[in-house]
C-alpha cells in the first residue's frame, strides 16, 4: 500500500508540473491585465508603471521561472486585483465551496440511490418511468437556466427560500460552516440542489442499471429461496454490489462538483472559489487562475487515489498492487 501511494504521489507531482506550465503559458497568451486593472484616465507613465510593477514587461519564460521558484516556497503569486497572496484568497473561499459541494453530494446520494434502486426493482411502474424521465431532464437542462428558474419559483414567487448569498455560519468541532444554522441551511438548499441535479440524475441511472443487473444474479435468487426478507436482500446483497460503480463516479464527480460549481456560484452569488475564478478569468487575474487550477488538479489527483483505496474496502476481490 505504501509503495502504491508513493508511486501515485510521484505521478501527481509530474502532472502538477506539466499543468503549471500549460496553464501559465496559456493565460499569458491572452489579453493584457493592465487594461482591466487601470483607471482609463491614467496617462502613459502610470500605464508603464503598472506594467513594470506587475512584472508584465518581462518575457513569459522569465515570469514562469520566478513563479516556480516562489511556488516551491509555497507562494503561488499575488492577485493582481486584490494584491493579496492568491493561495490565501482561494483558501479563504474554499470552505464555502466545499460545503456547497458536500451538501449537494449528500442530496445526490440520499435521493439518487433510493430512487434508482426503486426504479430498478419495479422497472415498469408509472413512478419508475416518471423517475427515469425526470433524470433525463436533470441531465439535459443547463445549470444556469435551472438556477434562475429555481430562484424565480422558490424565492420570487413562493418566497420560501432566499435567492442569494451564504447565510449565517456557526462553528462546531472546529469547522465553521453554514450547515449548522437554519439561516445558513435555508441559503444553502437552492444552490446545493441546483448543483446536485446533474449528479442526482447520474446516481439514479447508475443505481437503476446496477439494480437491474444484480437482481438477476444467482445469489439474489438463492437468498430469496433461502427465505430472506426483501429488505435484507436489498440492504445486504443488492446495495453492496451496486456500490462500486457508484463510488467511482461519485468520487470523480466530486472533483467536478468543486471545479464546476462556478455557474451555480455565479447565479446564487455564493462566495466560493468558483465565483472567485470566474471573476479572475474576466479580469485576467492570472495568479489566481494559475493557483486555482493547480489546486483543482491536486484535488482531482487526491480523489482518484482515495477512490482506488476505497475499492479495496468495498470489494475484497480488488487488490492494490504492492499489498502482500
Amino acid at each position, binding site marked *: 500500500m505504501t509503495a502504491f501511494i508513493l508511486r501515485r504521489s510521484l505521478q501527481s507531482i509530474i502532472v502538477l508540473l506539466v499543468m503549471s506550465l500549460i496553464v501559465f503559458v496559456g493565460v499569458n497568451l*491572452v*489579453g*493584457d*491585465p*493592465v*487594461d*482591466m*486593472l*487601470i*483607471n*482609463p*484616465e*491614467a*496617462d*502613459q507613465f*502610470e*500605464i508603464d*508603471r*503598472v506594467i513594470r*510593477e*506587475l512584472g508584465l514587461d518581462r518575457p513569459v519564460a522569465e515570469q514562469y521561472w520566478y513563479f516556480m521558484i516562489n511556488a516551491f516556497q509555497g507562494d503561488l503569486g*499575488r492577485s493582481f*486585483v*486584490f*494584491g*493579496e497572496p492568491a493561495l490565501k*484568497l482561494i483558501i*479563504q*473561499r474554499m470552505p*464555502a465551496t466545499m460545503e456547497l459541494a458536500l451538501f449537494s453530494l449528500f442530496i445526490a446520494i440520499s435521493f439518487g440511490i433510493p430512487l434508482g434502486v426503486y426504479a430498478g426493482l419495479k422497472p415498469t411502474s408509472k413512478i419508475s418511468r416518471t423517475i427515469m424521465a425526470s433524470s433525463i431532464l436533470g441531465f439535459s437542462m443547463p445549470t444556469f437556466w435551472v438556477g*434562475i428558474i429555481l*430562484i424565480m419559483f*422558490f*424565492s*420570487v414567487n*413562493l*418566497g*420560501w*427560500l*432566499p*435567492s*442569494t*448569498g451564504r447565510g449565517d455560519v456557526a462553528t462546531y468541532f472546529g469547522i465553521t460552516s453554514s450547515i449548522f444554522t*437554519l*439561516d445558513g*441551511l*435555508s441559503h444553502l*438548499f437552492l444552490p446545493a440542489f441546483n448543483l446536485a441535479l446533474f449528479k442526482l440524475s447520474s446516481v439514479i441511472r447508475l443505481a437503476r442499471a446496477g439494480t437491474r443487473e444484480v437482481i438477476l444474479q444467482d445469489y439474489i435468487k438463492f437468498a430469496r429461496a433461502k427465505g430472506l426478507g426483501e429488505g435484507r436482500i436489498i440492504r445486504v446483497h443488492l446495495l453492496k454490489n451496486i456500490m462500486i460503480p457508484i463510488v467511482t463516479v461519485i468520487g470523480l464527480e466530486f472533483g467536478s462538483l468543486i471545479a464546476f460549481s462556478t455557474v451555480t456560484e*455565479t*447565479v446564487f*452569488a455564493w*462566495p*466560493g472559489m468558483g*465565483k*472567485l475564478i*470566474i*471573476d479572475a478569468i*474576466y*479580469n*485576467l487575474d492570472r495568479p489566481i487562475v494559475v493557483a486555482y487550477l493547480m489546486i483543482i488538479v491536486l484535488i482531482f489527483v487526491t480523489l482518484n487515489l482515495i477512490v482506488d483505496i476505497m475499492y479495496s474496502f468495498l470489494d475484497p476481490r480488488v487488490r492494490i498492487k504492492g499489498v502482500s
Partner: protein
Amino acid sequence: MKLTRMITIGIAAIGLSFAANAADLRVGLQSEPSSIDPHYHNLGPNNGFATHIFGALVGSDENQQHYPDLAVSWKPVDDTTWEFKLRQGVKWHDGSPFSADDVLFTVERAQNVPNSPSSFVTYLKGKTFSKIDDHTVHIKTEKPYPLMPNDMTTVKIISAKAGKGASTEDYNSGKAAIGTGPYKFVEWVPGDRIVLERNDDYFGAKAAFDKVTFKPIKSGPARISALLAGDVDFIDNVPPLDVARLKKDNSVQLSGGPSNRVIYLHMDQFREDSPHIKAKDGGAIKNPLMDVRVRKAISMSINRDAIVDRVMEGVAVKAGQLLPAGFHGVSDKMKPEAYDPKMAKKLMAEAGYPDGFKMVVHGPNDRYINDAKIAEALAQMLNRVGIDASVETMTKAVYFKRASRGGPDKSPEFSFMVLGWGAGSGEASSPLKALLHTYDKSKGLGAANRGRHTDAEVDTLIQKALATVDSDARGKLLAAATEKAVGENYGVIPLHYQVNTWAAKAGYKYLPRTDERTIVMGLSAN
C-alpha cells in the same frame, strides 16, 4: 418528495422570522470593490464605495458638481498656488480630530501603496502640499493648474493616526479603516458582504440607515431576482432588457439618468495603409478614414435614433459631443448628427469612394451596455451607404490590449472601433485630453487616442484650457476644442450617452449619478 416539501416549508417559516429591520439596508452590487483601502485601486467600484467611509477635500455630487466636504472653501491665491480651508471640528471614526496633518499624510501614502494596480499618482504628481496652519493647506504647482478641485474629489483623506504604517490588508481587516464619512466600517467578507454602520458623529446630514450590507451579485438576472425576492432592497446596473418590465412592477422603483459615459467611434487616422480596411475587391487601398469627408459620411450614415430605440431599448440618449449638456466645458451649439444616408453617399463619392470599401468594425462584447449589438447595428447602417462592413467583437480582456497596443511597435491594431469614455473629472477636458489631443507620451496627453487623431489647433486649445484657472474662460476654450475636434474634424464620432439604471424596493428612490457610482447617501424614502 413530500418530505422535502415539508422541510422546505419549515425552513422557509424560520427564514421569515429573520426579516430585516426597516432601518437596515441591503444592497446588491454588480462589482465588488477589490479593497477597503481607499488608495489601493483607483477604479470606479472602489472609489464609489470608499465615499461611504472616507471623505475627500472636495465632494462630488450626483451631477459631479463640487461641494465642500473636508475642505469648506478653496481658491487660487496666486497663479500656481491653491488654498484649501479645512473644516473645523471634524472627528475621525475613532474620535480623534481631523487636521491638516492628515491631509499631508494622505498625499504621501496615496502615492506609495505597494502592489497598487492603479494608483492615485495621476492626480497628485507635480503638486506640493504644505501646511499653513492646522486647518489651512496650500498646494503648489509649477504651472497654473485649474483642475485642482476636480483632482481633490478623487483622493480620499485617511487618518494619519490609524494609517501610520498600515498596509492594504490592515484596511481590509478594518484595523485601519478609519474615516470621516457618514458610515463606519464593520466587516468585509470578500465575495460575500461588506457591512457598514451609521456614524453618529458625522458632520453633515446623518446617514439614513443604521446598518448597510453590500452584497456582490455579479449576474444581472440574479440581482433582479434578489430584489424581487426581497433579499436585497436596492440594486445597481439594471440590464436595459429588464427596464421595461420592471417599470410596470409596483413593488419596484426605478431611477436612471444619462451618465458621463459617451459611446463613440475611434477611426484610424495615422496609417496610410490601415490593417482592417481593403478595397471591395480585397486589394490594398489608401486609408479612406484619413479623409474628413469619409468620417463625416460615416457619422451621417448612423441612425442614432434607431440605436437608442432598438438596440438600447430606449435606455440611452443620443450624443452630439463628448459629454451631455450640463457638464462644464460642453458646447451649446453641437447637436447629434442627423441621419442622412443620401448626403453620406454624396460625401463618399466626393472623397473618391463612390463604391465604398471593405472594413472591419471592432468592438468589445462585455464592457459597455449592449456593446456587441451596437457594433452589429453599425455595420448594417454602414452597408447601406456602400461600406462593406463586417463585425468582430471579443471579450474586453482581449479587446483593450489589441485596441491600445496590439499592432507593431505597440500601436493600436484596429481601424474602426467602438469604445466608451466616462469623464471622471466631470469636465470636457477629460475626454478631450485623453481621446483627441495628439498622442504625446512625454506630456502624458492623448493616452487613449486610439485613432491617433491629430490637429495642432485642437492641441493648442486643450493645452490652453488646461492652464486656464478662470472657470468660464476654460469652459469656452473646451467648448471650442470640442467644436473643432468633433464637430469639424470628426476626430471621433459620438453615438450615445449611456443611461444607468438603479432599482429599489417601493418606497425608496435613488438619485441617479452621472458617474455611475452606487452610493447609498443618494437613496431616500419617498
